[in-house]
């Protein structure tokens, strides 16, 4: 198709930039994710100071995806705090690779003290997973994000089941949206659930602005979250339009950095 042209020539450029650049800039420091999942993020991992929104459709999967992203961080000694995500079965998180020695669960605070609690954890924990209370003011979330930016923690905003409101999602640097989820292993009256395959759309601001789609195991047959195979750029009209808009801007930012 005609609008896949620029995409084909782009891949070598970041490689080249990586070779030429001697330093790791502060804004490029990342909390590593599993190698397979690094393709999801423009920075190759959870960029310190950034915020990541995770939302899911009716098929769910946000807890599984969150666990998959936390797995590598907690296993390498980073602490993760989870604020106000009720009912998360940590046995499942452990199957998905999260090291339970490095995770702390904070009860859902009163809406008034939500920001204070999250702000106290930012900086001390490398990753803070927080579900904002319903009808939270966008300005409050922005303040929490600013603190994460300043302290170099990764803020993951998750809404549990598709409650992350549109405003919060727009504020995040990277937005992972689980679009559809297909389960394997369960028949009609036989078998048992073994794995689920899901399509995850990655959008966001700046480098992540161009929407991309990935087929992920949520979770896979081995219990882990992984990539099934990369799907080429979305074919839908408005997505490619966004990609075209974002293209030059992305390139400009890179040349400055």
């Amino acid at each position, binding site marked *: 198709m005609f609008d896949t042209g620029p995409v084909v020539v782009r891949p070598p450029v970041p490689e080249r930039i990586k070779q030429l650049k001697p330093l790791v800039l502060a804004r490029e420091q990342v909390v590593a994710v599993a190698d397979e999942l690094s393709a999801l993020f423009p920075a190759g991992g959870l960029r310190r100071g950034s915020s990541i929104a995770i939302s899911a*459709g009716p098929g*769910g999967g946000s807890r599984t995806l969150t666990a998959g992203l936390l797995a590598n961080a907690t296993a390498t000694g980073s602490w993760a705090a989870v604020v106000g995500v009720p009912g998360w079965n*940590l046995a499942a998180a452990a199957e998905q690779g999260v090291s339970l020695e490095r995770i702390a*669960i904070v009860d859902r605070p009163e809406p008034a003290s939500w920001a*204070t609690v999250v702000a106290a954890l930012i900086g001390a924990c490398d990753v803070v997973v927080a579900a904002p209370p319903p009808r939270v003011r966008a300005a409050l979330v922005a303040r929490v994000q600013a603190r994460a930016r300043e302290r170099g923690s990764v803020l993951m905003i998750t809404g549990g089941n598709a409650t992350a409101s549109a405003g919060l999602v727009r504020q995040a640097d990277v937005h992972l949206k689980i679009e559809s989820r297909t*389960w394997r292993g*369960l028949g009609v009256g036989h*078998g048992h659930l073994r794995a689920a395959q899901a399509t995850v759309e990655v959008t966001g601001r700046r480098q992540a602005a161009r929407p991309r789609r990935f087929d992920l195991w949520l979770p896979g047959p081995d219990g882990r979250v992984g990539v099934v195979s990369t799907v080429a750029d979305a074919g839908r009209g408005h997505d490619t339009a966004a990609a075209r808009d974002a293209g030059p801007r992305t390139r400009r930012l890179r040349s400055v950095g």
Partner: protein
Amino acid sequence: MTAVRTMVVWCLDWPVVAAGCESDDVAAVFVANRVVAASAAARVAGIERGLRRREAQRRCPHLLVFDRDEAREVRIFEEVVRVVERYTPRIEVTRPGQCAFATRGPSRYFGGDHALADLLSEAIADVLAGRTEVRIGVADGPFAAALAARAAQAERTGCAIIEPGSVTDFLHPLPVTALERPELTDVLLRLGLRTLGAFAALPATDVLGRFGVEGREGHRLANGLDALPPDGRIPPPDLDVSIELDPPIERVDQAAFVAKTLAEQLEQQLQHEGVACTRVAIEAETEHGELLVRLWRHEGALSAAAVADRVRWQLDGWLNAAPSARPSGGLIRLALVPDEVIAAAGRQLGFWGGETAADERAARAFARVQGLLGPDAVRVPEWSGGRQLGDEVALVSAAAVDLAERSLRPVAADAGSIGVGVEAPWPGRLPRPAPSLLHASPLLVDVLDAAGDAVHITGRGLASAAPRTLVLADRRRLRVTAWAGPWLVEERWWDADRSRRQARFQIVTDDGGARVVMRESGQWWEVAAYD
């Protein structure tokens, strides 16, 4: 050089006494679900230190259970200390229930160790009024004196006096575990060194080389010496911290606030000098010029939080004493004087695993959040194991566990071998993957067959018909695209109250969601979802 001749006054089962029990009550005090102290009657019933609460209640169903309250223990122990203070100044409180002082002056004044011990035991027995018994031990050095107090027999008026110079004869037959350094004594026992004498017979240089500073301390104690060589304990003159209180403080909560800042200030000063404090004097001065002083000792070095706790307990003891013994006015000055200091060994943060800077930082943040939301607001997972969903991992308050200690446990790469509970076979558990969302209380749902009737479980443990429709708690109807089950679980059929009989299904619906639903007592429940 031998250690300072010391008298130790030990009141038996102090935590139980502080909880307000008489000596014939069957009671035990628990910390983190383990017995830390039990009354004499409870000990007869088989309650021992370290026993789990459930086991303790099994052995003794009418056991009175108390949580530990150290502030209260100190406040009540203050009565005893005040009695001892009539005979000698500079008493150091080792912990609530036990205090020590050097006997050189008072024994000469009262006519010898025996006379002093008899006087004291009578006076303390008066104030205790039968709530518990008191034991007194005199020996060279506080370690031997404390062991002597424990060895003292009730029939010999509760006093054991080890003559000067014969302390090693007393110590050497005792088991090596008397050192109360579990990590060290564990190794010693496995090396075949079962008594203090056997350990003491080793050359000091070899012990230092093999067991480090801790080993050297233990070795010195086993030889009847002070734990630390005498040259390491001259406090530099300017380490005390004090604060003038204006207006005067009369309430404990105000004082506790001051105590915290003061303790932090002290710790900073000590850190600056590269020393740690093993004994601290807490001094308070009242409006009317009364000076209250009490020494506190700690086996390890006292941290800021530990000092702040002790100051708070002590002030609680002074300010909330009986009206006759209470200071006549508010406190106008509070000072902390590090009385014995040792060179701070420092804490080496781990390079691989162990305690890391990240753990410390996280622990501080959790403490802050606990301050905001309450002590149980921050919880950390622990493996427990179980058949039901949600039994595998238990959440415990982060305040109750040592976050750095946890990290020392082996972390296995695959989920199958993480902990004992997970590895143990739990027949009837749902196969992997585990559902990631557990409902706090199951949601009432409905599972319908093609005819629109509720599916039920037959007597043979089969579904009456294939589920076709799932009606959610919010009355949304979803078409069932795949299902399996029932997996039957029948637990505790012998116990009418706690028996459970349930049939579980996995159901995938047309919206892509997967759920665990369960039929129990004639109803359908959604218990978990694969979020």
